[in-house]
């Protein structure tokens, strides 16, 4: 069943702050095989002009996708998450995420489309720091495949 178009433009309340920790960044950097000390050594990060270690570019997805859960699990929207695959992902950075950040995410449904029985949902997550400054925007396209086979 096609998703309700009236949800386009809907913005969900900002999430509670996510506090970015040095060791979580280290864990993520090691999991993706990163060896750049800017992710793990505060002194190396300072040499690049950052106040603390920064996170690899895709780290923030863990935070924005959790926030997108508000949309995905919205019973009124009625998305069948068991059929969802990740279609596209994009980020636009004002600055890198870094240790010590307390980040909130505000999720908005940008578009809903129906294509060949697939529901396509575009979610934008605006990430702000504790001072209210914009850090990064994440766009996530989810595709709920048509339930054709039984």
């Amino acid at each position: 069943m096609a998703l309700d178009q009236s949800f386009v433009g809907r913005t969900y309340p900002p999430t509670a702050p996510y506090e970015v920790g040095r060791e979580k960044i280290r864990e993520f950097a090691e999991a993706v095989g990163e060896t750049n000390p800017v992710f793990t050594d505060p002194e190396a990060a300072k040499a690049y002009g950052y106040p603390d270690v920064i996170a690899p570019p895709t780290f923030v997805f863990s935070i924005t996708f959790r926030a997108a859960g508000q949309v995905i699990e919205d019973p009124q929207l009625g998305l069948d998450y068991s059929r969802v695959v990740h279609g596209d992902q994009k980020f636009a950075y004002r600055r890198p995420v870094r240790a010590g950040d307390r980040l909130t995410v505000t999720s908005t449904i940008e578009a809903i489309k129906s294509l060949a029985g697939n529901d396509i949902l575009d979610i934008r997550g605006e990430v702000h720091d504790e001072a209210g400054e914009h850090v990064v925007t994440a766009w996530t396209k989810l595709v709920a495949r048509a339930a054709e086979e039984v």
Partner: protein
Amino acid sequence: MTAKIGYDDVEVGTELPARTFPVTRATLVRYAGASGDFNPIHWNEKFAKEVGLPDVIAHGMFTMAEAIRVVTDWLGDPGAVLEYGVRFTKPVVVPNDDQGALIEVSAKVAAKLDDNTVRVDLTATSAGQKVLGMSRAVVRLA
């Protein structure tokens, strides 16, 4: 932001050093823990096959994270990445053996933009299949 590559040192078509990234089941378990994405299609073969996949597949976000390393290692400063986007076109299938799979990534400068920025287009393949499409980053050079 202090990229080690100068804007004047690149032109459209400049190739970045290509890389090959191995991925095994252990890599995926580790990424699941680090990212918080515990979807069983990334570690449970039985589940993956039940939902119509050929085998366990890598997290799309893992592939996205590997691909940008070609760019960030070139730049030196990962904070010089201003935009990064991909389309997930095919899954990276990861068999349960000692080899796992390989993700091969190449990249080249596709356009010189304003403000010392360039657009880099990336290509990522695994087992001969293109696994990322529309994969591009905008980065600030020195």
